[in-house]
């Protein structure tokens, strides 16, 4: 009964979305206020209905209702409760329910908090949002209905893929989707603005918070996925340039560019057509990510729920959404009025450079990801594109980007003083030199790693130097500096935190790529292995049965120079219901580096395959990512961007005075 209720609510949501997609749009075109007003209750009704559908599916998982096909395929009565709840989105059908639920929540947020939006813009935004909803409701109901029953009901379910039964991965998809779906807001605003024929600073101020929410979530989602790959897959890496990873990375790159170009629209009323294009592209890349993962047209280590029929459907959605919006763009964008002019060396100029580099980087990842498909379609042969391509193309693009990142915030709007800005970065330059020398002294190479460490120092210290500059640290009494710091806009704090954190993350990325040590050994109990100055003794293996899996837990003692460091217990789990083995690496972190042990298979001779790694600076990647997210959230709390904050005319004197400091 309850699954049927969910199914029914889903169908109702489709019809509500159909109304919301058409009436307010027509109302905005004809000036019919009553029709436009339909958008608000419709958006709220959608949230309620989708919540019912979502809870119905969750209920079926929690009580292990094996008469529901989706539950049979992805759950097991012995599965821990956490994974029963998270299992709802651990499969294709359920993940799409989560997708539309978030879409509806974003729509409702605009309906609730968008009181100050011009009524026609609001009606059009909500209409476009509902159009996306209609597409996805149809997709779910026609190709991926999670409420399908199975008769007779089996006694036990097939269980969730054991790799997904992990706290890191349980919350990876929701944040990823929150990011993907969040960009739908920027898209809806862009399309609505194209229909309205008007893009202005107020528009940008409306787009920015949604983009910030989406960007912060996507950052967190990608970081969680990477962290999961690091400790769960047992290969010791954290990024593989796999098509599915790239599918989430492309919207992130484009979204980062959007975040920055929207600032220019907001402050200087320039780069409008470009920003609208970025908004369309960012969401299109999110849709494409959804498509690529489910279509099976690219080889990936973690493609899930591959089904060509679904792929064709999402492809049509993609063509309608992206093709339609780009056609609208080609038709309407030329008539958008161009805004303020600026010199190449200026805050705008730096942001344009940031956009150019980020867009090129996005294109690079795009080409690298889809090149095998393009060649195959043209019958030019089969290739695979791997990390060497991305290291050779993507990394060099990031070098100028990070270099400019520290300088940009120190430049004034319209016309900046580059020598002056560089002079104020002397502390960052000194730190960079010190880090480069230290790196050469400790590691000696490779050259790219030294460059990377230098850039990281430049980015982090540069961001802090800019902050110090703003609060006149050490030039006025400390108390006054603190007062100034407290008075800084949250957006400025967010920028500083995010930019400094990127530097920290770069240290982790460079360090783990350049100076990782690895050894794979067949060890008997009592054997000792060495990695990066640590000696690791294999003390034994404990076996046990926990909930829905069997486990072998290795006991290892880590010592350095004869002194005890840690006891590590890497696990190897076997899930009988899926006949699958997973590894749970054991990690000892000093915050400067990780000692990492993954337990492999035993052989007949009583030896266990053990992978031992030493990963310098890996924890800095996670710290940096947390910092990026924190920066995004702090920016989001800025009063100027707060959802529902009263709309005021932007005051150019205030902005100019700020930049002139």
């Amino acid at each position: 009964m309850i699954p049927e209720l969910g199914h029914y609510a889903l169908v109702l949501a489709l019809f509500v979305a159909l109304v919301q997609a058409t009436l307010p749009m027509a109302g905005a075109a004809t000036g019919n206020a009553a029709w436009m007003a339909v958008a608000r209750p419709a958006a709220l009704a959608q949230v309620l209905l989708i919540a019912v559908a979502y809870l119905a599916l969750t209920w079926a998982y929690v009580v292990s209702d094996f008469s529901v096909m989706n539950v049979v395929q992805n759950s097991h009565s012995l599965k821990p409760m956490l994974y029963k709840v998270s299992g709802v989105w651990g499969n294709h059908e359920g993940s799409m329910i989560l997708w539309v639920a978030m879409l509806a929540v974003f729509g409702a947020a605009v309906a609730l908090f968008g009181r100050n939006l011009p009524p026609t813009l609001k009606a059009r935004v909500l209409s476009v949002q509902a159009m996306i909803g209609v597409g996805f409701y149809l997709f779910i109901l026609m190709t991926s209905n999670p409420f399908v029953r199975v008769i007779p009901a089996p006694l036990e379910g097939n269980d969730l893929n054991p790799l997904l039964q992990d706290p890191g991965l349980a919350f990876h998809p929701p944040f990823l989707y929150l990011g993907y779906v969040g960009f739908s807001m920027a898209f809806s605003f862009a399309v609505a603005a194209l229909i309205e024929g008007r893009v202005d600073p107020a528009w940008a101020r409306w787009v920015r918070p949604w983009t910030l929410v989406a960007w912060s979530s996507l950052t967190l989602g990608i970081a969680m996925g990477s962290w999961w790959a690091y400790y769960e897959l047992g290969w010791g890496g954290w990024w593989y340039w796999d098509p599915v990873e790239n599918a989430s990375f492309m919207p992130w790159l484009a979204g980062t560019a959007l975040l920055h170009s929207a600032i220019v629209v907001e402050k200087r009323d320039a780069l409008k057509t470009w920003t609208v294009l970025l908004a369309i592209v960012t969401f299109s890349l999110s849709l494409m990510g959804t498509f690529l993962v489910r279509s099976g047209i690219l080889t990936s280590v973690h493609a899930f729920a591959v089904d060509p029929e679904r792929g064709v459907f999402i492809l049509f959605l993609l063509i309608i959404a992206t093709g339609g919006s780009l056609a609208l763009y080609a038709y309407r964008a030329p008539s958008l009025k161009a805004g303020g002019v600026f010199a190449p060396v200026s805050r705008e100029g730096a942001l344009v450079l940031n956009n150019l580099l980020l867009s090129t980087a996005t294109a690079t990842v795009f080409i690298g990801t889809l090149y095998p498909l393009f060649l195959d379609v043209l019958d030019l042969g089969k290739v695979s594109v791997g990390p060497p391509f991305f290291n050779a193309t993507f990394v060099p693009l990031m070098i100028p980007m990070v270099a400019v990142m520290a300088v940009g915030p120190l430049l004034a709007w319209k016309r900046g003083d580059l020598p002056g800005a560089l002079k104020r970065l002397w502390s960052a330059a000194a730190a960079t030199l010190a880090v480069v020398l230290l790196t050469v002294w400790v590691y000696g190479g490779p050259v790219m790693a030294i460059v990377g460490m230098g850039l990281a120092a430049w980015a982090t210290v540069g961001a802090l130097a800019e902050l110090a500059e703003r609060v006149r640290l050490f030039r006025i009494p400390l108390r006054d500096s603190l007062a100034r710091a407290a008075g800084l806009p949250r957006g400025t704090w967010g920028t500083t935190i995010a930019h400094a954190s990127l530097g920290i993350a770069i240290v982790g990325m460079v360090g783990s790529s350049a100076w990782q040590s690895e050894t794979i050994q067949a060890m008997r109990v009592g054997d000792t292995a060495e990695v990066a100055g640590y000696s690791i003794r294999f003390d034994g293996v404990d076996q046990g049965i926990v909930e829905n899996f069997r486990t072998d837990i290795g006991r290892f003692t880590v010592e350095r120079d004869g002194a005890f460091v840690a006891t590590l217990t890497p696990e190897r789990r076997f899930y009988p219901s899926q006949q699958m083995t997973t590894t749970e690496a054991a990690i000892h972190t000093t915050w400067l580096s990780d000692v990492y042990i993954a337990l492999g298979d035993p052989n007949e001779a009583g030896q266990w395959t053990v992978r031992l790694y030493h990963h310098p600076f890996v924890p800095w990647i996670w710290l940096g990512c947390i910092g990026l997210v924190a920066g995004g959230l702090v920016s989001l709390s800025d009063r100027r961007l707060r959802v529902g904050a009263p709309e005021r005319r932007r005051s150019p004197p205030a902005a100019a005075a700020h930049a002139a400091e």
Partner: protein
Amino acid sequence: MRRFLFLLPLVLFVGVGVAFFLGFGRDPRAIPSVLIDKPVPEFALAALPGRDKADARGLATADLRGDVTLVNVFASWCVPCKVEHPIITRLAREEGITVHAINHKDKPADALAWLTRNGDPYDRVGADPDGRASIEWGVYGVPETFLVDREGRIRFKHVGPLTPAVVEETIIPLVKQLRKG
């Protein structure tokens, strides 16, 4: 000109959309082999040094005539090879299929240690330290497995680790059929 610039994103997207659409009919994992139904390429490899099977010999074109055989390309550094190894062992020991191996770009000591640790089901193992013979065979990566008939022609090729499904549904039936014919 300015108009065209605004049209450009749409034009590019149409190209991508067409590629996506055409991509559906294709299996990205399927790699065509020009060698199917062709004779085994001319090659001769020395035996893996130090392998202590009584009749440890190298592997050459002439060795692949007379019986239906499998040729497995493996390396000690290849993780998927380890995954498929029990399946190959079963094919050799239980199904009675002669399995030869080409040891691809490996150090002999590593390969020997690997075979000692994981079991050695192979009849002949040819050492191909520089990967030259693998190029002749059109090997894209390890592991790959070839099925060779009595006349020394390649009849089937599998890229990546062998799976129980491929073995049950393709390899064993094909071996039976080729042995009869």
